[in-house]
């Protein structure tokens, strides 16, 4: 790694710190906004909500201290990744999240890979056939998918592929009780991943298709495409090298912006498919009115987005040599 690049990475990492602090502060604000505090909820759930007992809990949680002290305590705990206890499950929130995070990441990464690869390919194909039947069909399909609620699409795919055709599992991450290991386990998970990843990814396939098509047409209007033709390169080579490399730049920028949105989508898709990730955890927390857990998920998922954006920035730097890491 070049020195300039290294410094860039370091500086970008440092920029992350204030954002994470701001997210933490925002979380604290939301916690304070909620009607009733943790003590009320817990006392209520334990079934003996006497005033004395609630007060005792409040002292234990430090809720009787001045607001700024509570804030400092809260921030201090967050920095050590202590997100408090899940009220109902009596487990540290961070443990629950760490337990579920890998499943969500697998789903998200598969969906985004699917979306980027398929979207880019279809987008290029459409741009090369601009105005012809194939291009128009692709545009219509993209518009339709773009308007489809992902969770509903998931249900419909279950109806088709699991219930009617019975060729793909309708939910879960692995076959229960099969106890696969090694490669068999990986294949089993992949098998279960197909429908959720497709459901989550299809919306973004539509987005990337439209964006890539527009971006390609933009690039086709630039002079260096004429140069490439004058050099004797074939249209295929021009599309997949000269044009694509340049057309990718705005698409990558968008991918960064989309990651937060993707995480939101995975909440719904995981709920539909019983995929044991963060999204499913959100649903469970909602059912149990577990606000602490919800806020913990919001915090961690925001941090995930911040890190993902960092990665996207670095990828962009690799794609566009004009970016100078000052």
């Amino acid at each position: 790694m070049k020195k300039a690049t290294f410094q860039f990475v370091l500086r970008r990492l440092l920029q992350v710190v204030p954002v994470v602090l701001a997210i933490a502060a925002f979380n604290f604000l939301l916690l304070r906004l909620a009607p009733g505090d943790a003590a009320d909820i817990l006392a209520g759930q334990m079934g003996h909500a006497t005033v004395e007992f609630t007060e005792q809990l409040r002292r234990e949680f430090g809720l009787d201290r001045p607001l700024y002290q509570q804030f400092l305590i809260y921030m201090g705990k967050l920095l050590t990744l202590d997100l408090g206890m899940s009220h109902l499950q009596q487990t540290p929130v961070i443990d629950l999240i760490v337990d579920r995070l890998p499943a969500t990441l697998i789903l998200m990464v598969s969906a985004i890979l699917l979306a980027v690869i398929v979207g880019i390919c279809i987008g290029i194909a459409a741009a090369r056939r601009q105005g012809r039947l194939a291009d128009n069909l692709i545009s219509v399909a993209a518009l339709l998918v773009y308007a489809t609620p992902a969770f509903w699409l998931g249900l419909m795919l279950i109806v088709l592929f699991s219930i009617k055709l019975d060729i793909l599992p309708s939910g879960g991450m692995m076959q229960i009780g099969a106890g696969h290991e090694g490669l068999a386990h990986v294949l089993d998970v992949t098998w279960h991943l197909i429908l959720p990843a497709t459901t989550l990814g299809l919306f973004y396939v539509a987005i990337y298709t439209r964006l890539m098509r527009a971006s390609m047409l933009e690039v086709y209007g630039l002079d260096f495409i004429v140069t490439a033709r004058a050099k004797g390169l074939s249209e295929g080579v021009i599309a997949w090298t000269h044009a694509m490399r340049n057309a990718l730049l705005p698409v990558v920028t968008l991918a960064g912006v989309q990651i937060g949105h993707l995480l939101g989508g995975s909440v719904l898709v995981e709920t539909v498919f019983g995929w044991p990730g963060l999204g499913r955890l959100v649903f469970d927390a909602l059912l149990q009115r577990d606000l602490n857990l919800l806020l913990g998920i919001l915090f961690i998922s925001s941090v995930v987005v911040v890190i993902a954006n960092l990665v996207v920035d670095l990828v962009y730097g690799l794609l566009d040599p004009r970016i100078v890491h000052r």
Partner: protein
Amino acid sequence: MSAPVLDVRSLSVEFESTLGTVHAVRDLSFSIGEGETLALVGESGSGKSTAAMALLRLIPNPPGRISSGAVLLSGRDLMALSEADLRGVRGREMAMIFQDPMMALNPVYTIERQIGEVLRLHLGLSKSEILAEVVELLRLVGVPAPEERARQYPHNLSGGMRQRVMIAMALACRPRLLIADEPTTALDVTVQAQVLDLIHGLKEKLGMAVLLITHDLGIVAETANRVVVMYAGRKVEEGTVGEIFADPRHPYTRGLLGAAKWEEADGDLLREIPGTVPSPFEMPSGCSFAPRCAEAIPLCRGAMPELKDVAPGRQVRCFLAEGRGHG
């Protein structure tokens, strides 16, 4: 003179638009011999760049279309070639450089990648051969520290260096014809002369033909052997540089020469040709230059004059020039 390297016969290019068909180039013929530089001269909108693009069949279709004509490169008609055969000609036998080298180079690829691409495609060189040849080419066009420059991107280079890279890329396969479309317009004045000298020197060294497209008669005087003047898609005059500068027959050519700066002996600071090139949708019925022509007679507004041979290799499209005796 041996058979010409390039022989263009009756080339016409049309563009379809919502307002009707635009005849960008009409019935254009010229030829260029080995080691010769032909300048295609005219204002913007005269069709000179379109003609150049049409030679390599680079007119985007739709909306453009080469409606008729033949382009013979060493006797072979490019208009009759298949798309695949044509790609073998582009960049190999006939290469092109453009006005703005910043725009004409791909910003995301290194210089080596962009020049090397031509070498791999047309000459099938291996990776190590390519690097050596790229460095050699960069040295040929006078790029200092070629090993280092080869690894850089277009944005790392100055405008003049970029145009040198474009020239190196065009010359990679030692083409028989180089088309240079306003090669110095986007460059600093100080760099312009260097780039022109380079093109001229390489032409001599490699013995190729050059088609120079320009609006700048100063450049023409310095580098060209022969001149074709275009107006509103048509050739209006042709002759050697000496003939054109000493004895311009067409009023438009005289106007261009008058507009050029060094012709200020008669005291006028800068004589512009009054008016502008007519819109392609509102072509006058007679001679297309008549509305701007100070010498126009009623005949000029009634009919388009034919292109007449007035001497060997000397043509003019003007009613007035026909009657006008030499000298």
